[in-house]
């Protein structure tokens, strides 16, 4: 296993591999989105308490999950880059941040649009909402730190440290509804008790989550490829690609 993994840890061999994978992940994202929206709007029943407003859940919860998963994956790659000094991990961490920030914003935005009709407020300073907002600031801080430091190696080290320290916030978001008395409802799905949702609602939500994952992988791999081209622009193999693919 190990030799294979290390082979693709080199940017020159990862670049074409990622290029072959992107269309598949993109197509999977599109298909799963269509399926998820169909299930969410036409199969899942109306909620007896919240009426049709609950249908926001099919993007709100997947986006919120993604915002946390992506952060952990980003922190993982940042840590890998710090420990082993591998360039590809640094590219990976860097490329995950904008998509993570995007999903954090979507979670907050759809949360506000859901909170208004259900709680009567767009925003409350409750533990769940506040810690998710801090997550957005962590993403933005990570990206600005990258942008502010010119030397790419130093930028990766400094922002990698920030990513690792900020990872503490993720369990805080996740458990906030248990640790504090929050307005935000608790999890509808738990590892130990299963789900309290209708099966079709749950399926739609999981399909949308999978769609967001596929979307994330396609976008992030494309971004990693750009990072590789930029950093390796003086190498022979990039010159060949550039000569071939330029218009």
């Amino acid at each position: 296993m190990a030799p294979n993994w290390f082979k693709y840890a080199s940017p020159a061999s990862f670049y074409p591999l990622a290029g072959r994978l992107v269309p598949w992940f993109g197509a999977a994202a599109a298909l799963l989105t269509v399926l998820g929206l169909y299930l969410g709007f036409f199969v899942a029943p109306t909620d007896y308490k919240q009426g049709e407003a609950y249908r926001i859940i099919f993007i709100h919860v997947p986006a919120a999950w993604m915002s946390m998963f992506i952060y952990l994956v980003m922190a993982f790659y940042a840590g890998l880059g710090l420990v082993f000094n591998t360039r590809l991990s640094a590219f990976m961490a860097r490329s995950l941040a904008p998509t993570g920030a995007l999903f954090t914003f979507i979670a907050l935005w759809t949360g506000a649009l859901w909170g208004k009709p259900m709680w009567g407020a767009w925003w409350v300073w409750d533990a769940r909402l506040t810690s998710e907002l801090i997550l957005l600031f962590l993403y933005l801080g990570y990206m600005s730190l990258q942008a502010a430091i010119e030397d790419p190696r130093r930028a990766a080290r400094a922002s990698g440290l920030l990513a690792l320290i900020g990872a503490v916030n993720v369990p805080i978001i996740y458990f906030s509804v248990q640790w504090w008395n929050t307005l935000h409802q608790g999890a509808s799905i738990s590892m130990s008790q299963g789900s309290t949702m209708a099966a079709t609602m749950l399926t739609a939500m999981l399909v949308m989550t999978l769609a967001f994952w596929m979307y994330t992988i396609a976008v992030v791999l494309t971004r990693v490829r750009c990072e590789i081209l930029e950093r390796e622009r003086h190498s022979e193999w990039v010159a060949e690609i550039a000569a071939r693919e330029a218009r």
Partner: protein
Amino acid sequence: MSLAEFFDMGGYAFYVWGSYLVTAVLMLIEVVGVIRRRRTLLDRLGRIHGAAQGAGRSGR
């Protein structure tokens, strides 16, 4: 369920479609953004390296 009923979302149209529309637009912007970044980058690298390799290429 009629089409009008569907779009009304039981009176929650603003909140439901406001969520979905903004999500779709933002994701679209991100996709267009990375594709454009890649295109501009390849063009820029092509100019640098293409010029170095000489004008042997034809077409577009």
